[in-house]
């Protein structure tokens, strides 16, 4: 198992490098002169030329790419924002925990509600409970986040005065953003769970368990859900990865200075350093999510666990 984890961690190096090269190249060929954006519309030609030289924009692409890769991956120097001059490393260190917290809360709510809904729909297939759950899932997928966010604010902050409408602070500041951002997750969780459970509950071992007189809830949760978890975990992992980088709308509405806003502002301002480093960071975070998903597979399915262990031993023998 440890060997497998190590192998996956090593795989992250080419992934991060690939993302770095791709993002760097895309930004390089984006229209828009960073020197002009930094200095503003009133800058003189001399100032612009000096700024381009300072930023290395006059160097050939390959030199710039090499410098960026060596600074980032060898010297671990993430540089400074070209627009604000603030350290990118510090900015990410400050913003990532907020986005992470928001994403974790969203994930908990999404799948805390989505999985039970999916189970209920599956065990009551084609009954009103099933229709209700799937209708809720449909609504969840269809509702735009920004619209729901404003409705939640008006209801819980303006009318009921229960939760803060915006800003950062304690955990209470993250409840409305998480609720507004989790409807897609709830829907995805419910639909995936229903689908997985429908496959599982028709299996022979479920019939056997029932025939042996195992209580129904145990049949559903212990035998059914546990075996149907693999695709649900995949959806959860992918969803979490997406949330890490895609909470820009929610962050803007709720005035949360997080990673989504940071990277989008970077793109709009052609702040190469911010976009490049931010993207690499998100790629690595996404890779970790996928690793966690694979490890969770092993945790819930002994067959996969055995396969990992077997694979490790076989390679050890060959060596």
């Amino acid at each position: 198992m440890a060997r497998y984890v190590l192998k996956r961690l090593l795989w992250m190096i080419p992934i991060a490098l690939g993302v770095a090269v791709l993002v760097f190249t895309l930004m390089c060929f984006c229209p828009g002169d960073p020197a002009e954006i930094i200095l503003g519309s009133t800058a003189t030609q001399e100032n612009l030329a000096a700024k381009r030289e300072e930023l290395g924009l006059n160097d050939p692409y390959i030199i710039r790419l090499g410098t960026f890769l060596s600074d980032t991956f060898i010297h671990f120097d993430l540089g400074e924002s070209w627009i604000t001059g603030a350290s990118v490393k510090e900015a990410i260190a400050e913003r990532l925990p907020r986005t992470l917290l928001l994403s974790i809360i969203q994930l908990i709510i999404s799948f805390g509600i989505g999985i039970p809904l999916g189970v209920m729909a599956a065990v009551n297939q084609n009954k009103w409970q099933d229709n209700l759950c799937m209708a809720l899932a449909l609504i969840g997928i269809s509702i735009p986040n920004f619209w729901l966010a404003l409705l939640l604010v008006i209801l819980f902050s303006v009318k009921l005065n229960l939760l803060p409408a915006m800003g950062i602070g304690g955990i209470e500041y993250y409840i409305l953003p998480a609720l507004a951002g989790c409807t897609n997750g709830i829907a995805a969780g419910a639909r995936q769970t229903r689908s997985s459970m429908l496959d599982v509950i028709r299996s022979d071992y479920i019939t056997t368990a029932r025939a042996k007189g195992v209580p129904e809830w145990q049949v559903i949760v212990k035998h059914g859900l546990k075996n149907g978890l693999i695709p649900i975990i995949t959806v959860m992992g992918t969803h979490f990865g997406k949330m890490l980088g895609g909470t820009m709308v929610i962050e803007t509405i709720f005035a949360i200075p997080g990673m989504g806003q940071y990277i989008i502002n970077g793109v709009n301002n052609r702040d190469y350093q911010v976009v490049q480093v931010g993207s690499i960071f998100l790629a690595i975070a996404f890779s970790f999510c996928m690793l966690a998903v694979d490890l969770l597979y092993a945790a819930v399915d002994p067959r996969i666990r055995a396969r990992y262990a077997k694979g490790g031993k076989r390679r050890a023998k060959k060596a």
Partner: protein
Amino acid sequence: MKKLGKKLVALGLTLSMFALPLAGCGGSGDGAQTTAAGGSGDGGAESTAAAEVSGGLSSLEDGVLDIGVTVSWETLTPFRSNIANNVPFAYAAYETLAKLTGDKEYIPWVAKSWESAGDGVTYNVEIYDYVTDSAGNSITANDIKWMIDESKEAGLKPCFSKVDHVDVTGDYTLQIVMTEDMVGAFEQILTNTFVVSQAAYEGSKDQFATEIISTSSYLMTEFVADSVISFEKRDDYWQKEELIEPQNAANVEKLSFHLIKEASQAGIALETKTVDAFVQLDQNTATQFEGNPDFTLKAMSYINGYQLYFSGDESRIITDDLNLRQAICYAIDTEGLINGVFAGYGQKMHDPIADTSVGYLEKWKDEEYYDYNPDKARELLEQSDYNGETLVLLATSGSTMQRLCQMIQGYLLEVGINLELNLVDTALYTATRLDGSQYDMTINTVGGDSLPDHWSIRYDCYAYSTGDATGRHDEELAELLRTTWTQAGFTEENIDAVHNYLKDNMYAYGMVQPENIDVWRSDLGLQEAVVTNKGSVNCLSSVYGE
């Protein structure tokens, strides 16, 4: 029975789908009224109905004046231009040598006095000899010279490129020599030089990015990039009480600025008392507070107007077709734009520059300036060489700009001009705007403390390698500008000549000068609002009720 159950579930679902939106869409429910749009039309208008409630700053629950803003910040470094431009907390963070007030007057701040040596380029400046920062460092002329030199080298504030050199002539006196004789250029140095101690800056761990030491009457106590910045009044402020100008006064003990970019959330922040005031609130959001006695609205002329610049590049059909340019101007209903885009908060312009700039002549407001006249537009179009080609309008893609462009597109279509909108992000716009071959017209919001400041970056054909800011090479205009922007040539007659030249040749059309709306809780009893040159209330220096 089963069918009935299904129907009930369906009914329940339908009701819940309607109930959720309705639960949110009913307004605040505690007195906030929404009224029809209708701005004041002229700068400085104030509306309140709450004279009887004026608890003053003592009515603040936590003793902190919370102010909502829409301009983001990520660093506090004194060399970055974003700090200088329109950031409402700039006055609390740093002091400058002098300040330009809302009345277009330069008043001393750290500088005690300044005078011209008479040659138009040399200026002598004296600073107070007892200026200290919050860490106790004394500020001398060497610190000021260092700051100007560094600003020039950094190149992030373009006004410093007009400084030739600075000589220290005494402990607290210095001589600033400019590169050319241009009205307002030296004054821009006075208002853009943030005063900090060189020793404090060099000792800073992050070059004042997140922690600053300045001479300001406020001490920064909290800074979260893109979220909140808080200040507390200093007990050891260097200036003598009797010498503090009212525009520089520190009348609030503690204050916090909160970044709220989303317009509807800004309104909610005021309603829920998350903030006590909001600076530069979106005009359409501001209308919801009109007539509400709990809030005071103050509408002030914005320093930048929305201007339509016509391409000067020879490849565009519009460049040599004055009739077409004039037809476009007559076809645009600026009053319609004010009501449709800015909720009535704005005024028609009479020159491409806003009326807040130093040198603007009030008499222009009485002149006929391409007032909306579709018939005249059609007539001019007949006389033009236009044959139904599709013209291109380049602009940024922000929501306000989009609405503005769409309305202009409609107005032009009405008289028979086809217009294609090319709305791009700010970065792409910045990269394209000087290339007149890419568009027939472009919308910009270029301001300037003074007329020469604006002219030099827009119409001077020697300013850019491609000509002026739209690729035009009009040497006659350049000559006129160079005569006018010197100290000796900056006469009403010359200024008027430039205005008329631009108007007659229609290189640029001033459309709308919107108003900034600041909204305050009425119970703060804002008695005397000090207005900044940026067209918003200076919350630090304003006078509140007791």
